[in-house]
């Protein structure tokens, strides 16, 4: 089993979620985060005080999936979250040893 973790632009959440449910994913967890990356350097002025906005609001999505679904999941996210403009975000994939559904005690892919 794997966890696919994606950092995306906030307003893309609904499209990403729809793309994922379309490929059969039934659960995910979302966190509000701040991202620092290439999409930086933009300066703002408030009442004459200039500063560089370096942290931008992003959403982190975590999806536990069976290893077989990883590729489709990554593709679905890439397609749905892409605007083509800088700051679209990243996807990282890593392995998990175990998954448990608290309610039932089910494990592994049954738990997802």
């Amino acid at each position, binding site marked *: 089993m794997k966890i696919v973790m994606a950092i995306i632009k906030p307003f893309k959440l609904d499209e990403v979620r729809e793309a994922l449910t379309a490929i059969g994913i039934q659960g995910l967890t979302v966190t509000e985060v701040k991202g620092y990356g290439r999409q930086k350097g933009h300066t*703002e*002025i*408030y*009442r*004459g*005080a*200039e*500063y*560089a*906005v*370096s*942290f931008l609001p992003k959403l982190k999505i975590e999806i536990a999936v069976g290893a077989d679904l990883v590729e489709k999941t990554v593709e679905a996210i890439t397609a749905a979250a892409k605007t083509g403009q800088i700051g679209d975000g990243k996807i990282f994939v890593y392995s998990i040893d175990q998954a448990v559904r608290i309610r039932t005690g089910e494990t592994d892919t049954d738990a997802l």
Partner: protein
Amino acid sequence: MFTLNRHMRAAVGSLSLLGAFAGAAIAQDAAPAAPAFDTGDTAWMLTSSALVLMMTIPGLALFYGGMVRKKNVLSTVMQSFAICCLMSILWMVAGYSLAFTDGGSLNAYLGGMSKAFLSGVDMNSATATIPEYLFIMFQMTFAIITPALIAGAFAERMKFSAMLLFMAIWLIVVYVPVAHWVWGGGFLGSDGVLDFAGGTVVHINAGVAGLVAALIIGKREGYGQVNMAPHNLVLSVIGASLLWVGWFGFNAGSAVASNALASVAMLNTQVAAAAAALAWMFAEWIVAKKPSILGIISGAVAGLVAVTPAAGFVNPTGALIIGIISGVICYIAAVKIKHALGYDDSLDAFGVHGVGGIVGAILTGVFADPAINEASAGASVGTQIYGVIFTIIYAAIATAIILYIVKALVGLRPTKQEEIEGLDINLHGETVQ
């Protein structure tokens, strides 16, 4: 009666003295003959006092609190609240007496201590047609908001203890004399400077003190690098709105009566605030491509400031023009000039109150209309500028000296780590969740 105005407040000072004596006399002779207070005038001044208090708490507290970073919001609103409490006591103990009684041989410069702790004021003492107790209360709310305005200049970086000490001294050394000069029988009033509700006494005074404080205290840690955008402009909108509503007490209340002068002062206040808000908004829209909420509310306050000295001297068309001019000039001052000069007046106490006050004081000389107020006939731009310059010089020098004394006594700033972590948790042990 509706020609009573701030220009004649010099007279009011004496009037209140007279009222007290007269009242006492009456009381001795025939106790039941209470002075002829006007219940309508009194009702409006009771209301005005409540409105002006509301300007500081919660008005100014929120206006400022919304503009700082979240880690400093409580310390910012605490400043307004604590200043409100401290100035109330100081005003009762000595401030009122020093500002509004006769100072004898020094009267051109300062009043006396005959009404310290309000001694000698009683239920029959009158100021114009209202009880003197009420006039003391109304003026107290002015003595509260003026120091509170200064705090915007050094927001997010001053020790609370130092702030309290500075404000206490500043009230007595700066506010009280200037109030005496203009309204209490001192020389600026006698020289013909027109200041209906406090453009000079309140706004120029506070704005200049703020600029000096911002320079002496220095910039915030990370200024220019760290995001210092307002954390919650909803709070600032509530604040600006309550300032606006409360300003009706400030300006229309300065008629010290419930009459046509109060009415036109209120209407002028509304028109100038609205015009300045739109002027700032459109200026920003053109220059920075987006109309911001911070811009429109700043513009409204700029207009309210600028119309303060003028409210009871000009007609609504004059107020409209004062509003438009002040909105554009304060936008340039707060956003462009401050940026060019590089000082960190965090919340633009100078850019809005100082500059707005100066613009308003001068334009009062331009637009004063004798059809609104007989005193307008004596208006002169030259005299207005003279009053402005004198106040600027005095406020700047005195503020600087006080700050250096406070620095020597308790220090002005928290540690760098405390400032970066936030004043709320470090100075007050509390945070907003």
